[in-house]
């Protein structure tokens, strides 16, 4: 608890830099990552991240010391070159995009390793800490770094706000954007540059290998919760920031724990949580919905068979007393299902129960009429519009009556004409 209090009160001034740095990096990469994901170019982020290494090394060789500006400049150049190389391979040969990404990623990374070992074996002590770019070391984030990360975040943010509509257009419908005269290539170049920039900023905290998680995962989680782009972006940023702070805390409370991997682990935990609990696409929600739908069908089928029973008995008032066996004779139900369905319908006031006999209440009469009416309307529609044999029409209508909304019902009646079904038939 004390550690937690120390953490949130920034007792150690370095913590504030680490937290701010991680927050800025995560926000920037989640923002631009959403567009990368929706453009189906998530793994290009992977290639970019690996390809920053040679740039960092070249930046170091050029500056002769660990100067963040030089390193980032080098990183942006090679990162950008890598996307260019992927495009060249795909356009100029029969090698497909996946292999092109793999080739570029490993070649650039290998060159980076060669340069890195060259520096280690030749330079004089100045290179200390250059390895942190491989695996990241959030604890090393300094005040100056934080300012640079903030600038990157602001650039990304401003660009997305300024060009939001065009970015969306280019992302979702590239061809259409071209026909509208949008300079698609220029905007794609901008998106790529922003991606490279945020990844380059992030490698100091997460390292070149895990950095792609910050680009890909937040947007994928956002996608599980919403279908609307602004919401996806917002959620991606929020989830990413939460796991960023969480990762910083874990590594603060236990010195040997690395920040980057924990950020990724927490982000993945959010993925797992969302897969289970997301309100629309979550496993639990989907299971619940299908269960509810099944129960709805069951209840409506019970009401319908009660109606059919009355028809069989030539009773128009729908006020007969009947037993469970009567219902079962009209239609076969699973006994347990029937019992629970009857209990529910009684509870909801559609059925009245006296001892063993069951009867429809007023609202039950209305509801059962409605269901049967929909069923028969749909049967008519199918008979009229397709040449399905009439014995198949029934089974086709069997499922559909449960989902016809009042608006559809109106349209059905209209489509069938007033002559559809005479009023007294239902």
């Amino acid at each position: 608890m004390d550690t937690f209090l120390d953490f949130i009160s920034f007792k150690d001034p370095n913590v504030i830099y680490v937290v701010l740095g991680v927050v800025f990096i995560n926000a920037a990469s989640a923002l631009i990552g959403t567009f990368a994901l929706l453009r189906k170019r998530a793994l290009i982020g992977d290639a970019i991240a690996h390809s920053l290494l040679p740039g960092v090394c070249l930046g170091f060789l050029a500056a002769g010391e660990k100067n963040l500006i030089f390193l980032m400049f080098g990183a942006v150049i090679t990162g950008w070159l890598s996307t260019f190389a992927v495009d060249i391979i795909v356009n100029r040969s029969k090698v497909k995009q996946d292999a092109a990404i793999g080739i570029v990623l490993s070649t650039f990374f290998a060159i980076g390793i060669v340069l890195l070992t060259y520096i280690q074996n030749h330079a004089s002590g100045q290179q200390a800490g250059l390895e942190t770019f491989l695996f990241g070391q959030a604890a090393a984030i300094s005040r100056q770094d934080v300012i640079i990360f903030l600038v990157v975040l602001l650039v990304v943010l401003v660009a997305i706000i300024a060009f939001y509509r065009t970015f969306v257009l280019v992302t979702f419908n590239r061809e259409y954007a071209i026909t509208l005269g949008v300079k698609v290539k220029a905007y794609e170049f901008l998106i790529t540059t922003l991606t490279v920039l945020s990844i380059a900023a992030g490698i100091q905290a997460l390292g070149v290998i895990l950095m792609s998680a910050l680009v890909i995962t937040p947007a994928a989680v956002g996608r599980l919760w919403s279908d609307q782009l602004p919401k996806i972006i917002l959620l991606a940023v929020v989830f990413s920031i939460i796991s960023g702070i969480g990762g910083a805390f874990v590594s603060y409370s236990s010195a040997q724990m690395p920040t980057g991997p924990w950020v990724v682990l927490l982000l993945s935990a959010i993925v797992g949580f969302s897969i289970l609990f997301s309100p629309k696409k979550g496993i639990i929600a989907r299971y619940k919905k299908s269960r509810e739908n099944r129960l709805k069908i069951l209840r409506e089928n019970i009401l319908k068979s009660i109606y059919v029973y009355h028809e069989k008995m030539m009773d128009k008032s729908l006020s007969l007393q009947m037993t469970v066996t009567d219902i079962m004779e009209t239609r076969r139900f699973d006994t347990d299902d029937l019992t629970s369905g009857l209990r529910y319908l009684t509870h909801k006031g559609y059925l009245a129960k006296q001892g063993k006999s069951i009867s429809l209440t007023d609202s039950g009469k209305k509801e059962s009429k409605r269901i049967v009416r929909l069923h028969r309307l749909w049967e008519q529609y199918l008979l009229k519009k397709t040449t399905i044999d009439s014995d198949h029409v029934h089974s086709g209508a069997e499922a559909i009556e449960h989902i016809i909304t009042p608006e559809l019902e109106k349209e059905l009646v209209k489509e069938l004409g007033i002559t559809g079904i005479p009023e007294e038939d239902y």
Partner: protein
Amino acid sequence: MNDFWIILTASLVAINASVLGVFLVLRKMSMMGDAISHAVLPGIVVAYYFSGDRTSPLMLLGAALTGLITAFLIDWLAKKVKIQGDASIGITYTLLFAVGMIMISGWFKGNVDIDLDCVLYGDIAMINLDKIIVDQNLYLGPRAFYVELVAGLIIFLFVILGFRGFKLLSFDEDYGLALGINMNFWHYLMMGLVSLVTVVSFEVVGAVLVIGFLIIPAATAQLITKRLIPMIFTACGFGIIAVLVGFYLANWMNVSITGAMIAVSGILFFKVMMINAMVSRKKLRVKMH
């Protein structure tokens, strides 16, 4: 003599990886190979932790299971949860790699003899420390060589016996299903072999750079071959060339051997691609005249 063993072992890595890489490239699943190679890290760490002496064969097989689980997880995310295919790959491998890193620097620190640099590019120069010696003085070569050899035999056995299965899987999976063949079996068999390659190669080339051996020679061969079997042999050839050139380059410049091998392999790819484009342009010009 030490150089000889290093080159021989690295060539075996290149051959093993290139053979499987051909199928990965043709199936457009290169990044699946990338994901598996990153994701076996936690499996390897656990295997080292429990076996202590680095490489018991049983533990290696256990670690290879991590790769198979990765393939399952990616398929599950993509098909059941309906997360976009490329994102499924990215999410899965970064998670497993992160777990591996936390194990190395956190949970198992001090208990596992794995250096983070080794994760990146292996310890190929060190393989000669772990020798197999019979009768106290007959030196048979480094252990890593024999591990690769056994893996190579397993791979060749499966690829020769299952050649038609893999071919069908790579060209037209749906048609295979229509013939009544269990394509899932062949898919996971292949993923299992890819995991095996990445696990046994870990010590030699690391977890990250093995993707270079898997994909680059195969893609280079794809540029210039027209039949499957020649493509496999050509890929192996490119792999070996990269190993040879890379080794001497690395020695000359005093840099990472594995890094140099993959860098050479990649540059070779771009060279072949450019020459290929030039030749076909020339052909086109001849045709037009």
